[in-house]
């Protein structure tokens, strides 16, 4: 599904260069649940963003679902993200002007799915994360845990090939975190490929494989 070879990412700030990823090799298969761990600044989020085509690498190779990321245009990457990927961000990344239902329906509408069908699919997705009663609420009227569940509903409503999650529980209390993790577990059991960055050991244990990053390199791979 995803194959990465010698991935390098360097950030430039004037003359100064910071090498965040220093040659990472990685491969994942369909239906796998991979957790990426590491201390702050280890490069785990950067790794996730590159792998999910949200950012461009400085060097190396990313083959995702048979597509070479370096050969894809910006438009192609956007379309790939729309059709094949789902994203859950640490800060939920919901659109404040859209209701929960509209937030979830938007990517479906962009895929040219009819309005009625898109809204039905979005509603179904929100019911799955137990937010059937919050369809018409704006994000500002939802709790952090609820917002994150809307974010997950949006990420999976179109049944993506890969679900990318960047510290999805970092801003949540224990109860909400547990609810989110439970959803991830159910999704994985249903065959969803998930790649999740987390710094919490207890949630990483749910993954089939845990990758530890340090100083821009994979230092260990642990199978659960």
């Amino acid at each position, binding site marked *: 599904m995803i194959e990465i070879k010698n991935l390098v990412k360097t950030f430039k700030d004037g003359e100064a260069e910071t090498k965040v990823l220093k040659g990472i090799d990685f491969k994942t298969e369909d239906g796998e649940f991979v957790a990426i761990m590491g201390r702050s600044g280890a490069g785990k989020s950067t790794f996730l963003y590159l792998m999910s085509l*949200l*950012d461009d690498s400085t060097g190396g190779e990313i083959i995702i679902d048979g597509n070479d990321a370096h050969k894809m245009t910006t438009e192609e990457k956007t*379309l790939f993200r729309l059709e094949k990927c789902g*994203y859950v961000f640490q800060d939920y990344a919901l*659109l404040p002007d859209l209701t929960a239902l509209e937030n979830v329906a938007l990517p479906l509408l962009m895929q040219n799915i009819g309005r009625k069908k898109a809204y039905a699919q979005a509603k179904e997705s929100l019911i799955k994360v137990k937010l059937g009663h919050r369809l018409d609420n704006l994000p500002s009227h939802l709790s952090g845990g609820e917002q994150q569940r809307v974010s997950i509903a949006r990420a999976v409503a179109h049944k993506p090939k890969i679900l990318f999650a960047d510290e999805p529980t970092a801003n949540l209390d224990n109860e909400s975190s547990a609810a989110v993790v439970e959803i991830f577990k159910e999704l994985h059991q249903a065959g969803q490929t998930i790649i999740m960055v987390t710094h919490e050991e207890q949630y990483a244990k749910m993954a089939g494989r845990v990758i530890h990053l340090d100083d821009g390199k994979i230092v260990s791979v642990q199978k659960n």
Partner: protein
Amino acid sequence: MFSALNLRIGFFLAVRQIKRASLWTTGLIIFVMVLTFLNLVVVSGVLVGIVQGSIDSHRTQDTGDVIVSSLDDKKYIENSPEVIGIIKSLPQVKDASARYRLGGTLEANYKTRKDTDKPNIAVTQIIGIDPVAENNVSNMSKNIIKGEYLLPDDYDQIVLGSLLLEEDFSFNALFATLKNVSPGVKIRVNVNGVQREVTVKGVFESKVQDISRNAYMIDSQFRSIIGRNDGNVSEIAIKLNQGIDPKEVSEALVLSGVDEVAKIKTYYEAQPQFLKDVIKTFAMLGSMLSSIGLAVASITIFIVIFINAITRRKFIGILKGIGINGKAIEASYVFQSIFYALCGSAVGLVLVYAVLVPFFIAHPIDFPFSDGILVAPVNQTIFRVGLLVLSTVIAGYIPARMIVRKNTLDSILGRN
């Protein structure tokens, strides 16, 4: 490409952004657009209105809709009674006023003047009229500011334009004016060496300065002064029924052969050259001011959309991140610009046509040479709305594109 799908998603986003935006912010933006619209329409409209007021004054108080006057090398229109008959037979003609016009002098205080005193004389055009016909064409009685208008039975009475009198025209360096003359005072008319003592019956004031420098008498008495008994007049001002194109009547008169003995001009053709020049100059000024207004509108909307987009950069990043096409996002800002421009224009249109135009008609701006009104022809206003929308679309698109083009992840994370 702005595909149908991108436009649909753009519209979806725009509607929700507008719907859930702060009412105050939306109101303020629309208010700015209203002011911009008014700047576009009203400023040039008033400029044109000043000229239009002058054109209207010439038309309603002097030339009528069509004016028939003597040929350049003739003192009067030959066979005038026949020409008047032709004019009156046309169904489009509502009224016609035949005028005798001749230069002469007016003298006041001649009884009390000592030999060493300077004579109190003003040079003028003296016009002989049928007061009823003239009033039907030029509504002259409404312009009387002192005394009364002429009646058909008046004998040796005269009405004077205000510019002939010193007390009504203080700027008398250019023209000699009559001192101590008011209704009831006797003055002496001198035309072609023939003198006649007449009583000032009234004083009138017109926005057409040429008219305000004229003196009017009953036609039969004026004919006796100038010794013309053939009924040949100097000019005939024609008022047409409402909605009739003056050109139509002008052409009908030409077909009747009137052009062989007289010049036939529509009110537009009879406009003085200075007025035509003023129209051109004001139109140019209006265009300049409109262009500045348009530039201000474009810059305003650019700033509004730029600030809107820059403060929403993170959300633009999120949209791109979850796979929303950049063109759809750009379209959403274009739709917002269109919304602001259309709302501003709609409020502006209501203000212009329901408030300002009727207000200026009821209370024209009192310019020395015109009653300034607000001229806002619908077709030109619609064109300006189109221009405003077009410029705001461009001004909205550019900043949206600038922000959408930024790196997706940098936008999401708020990195520069």
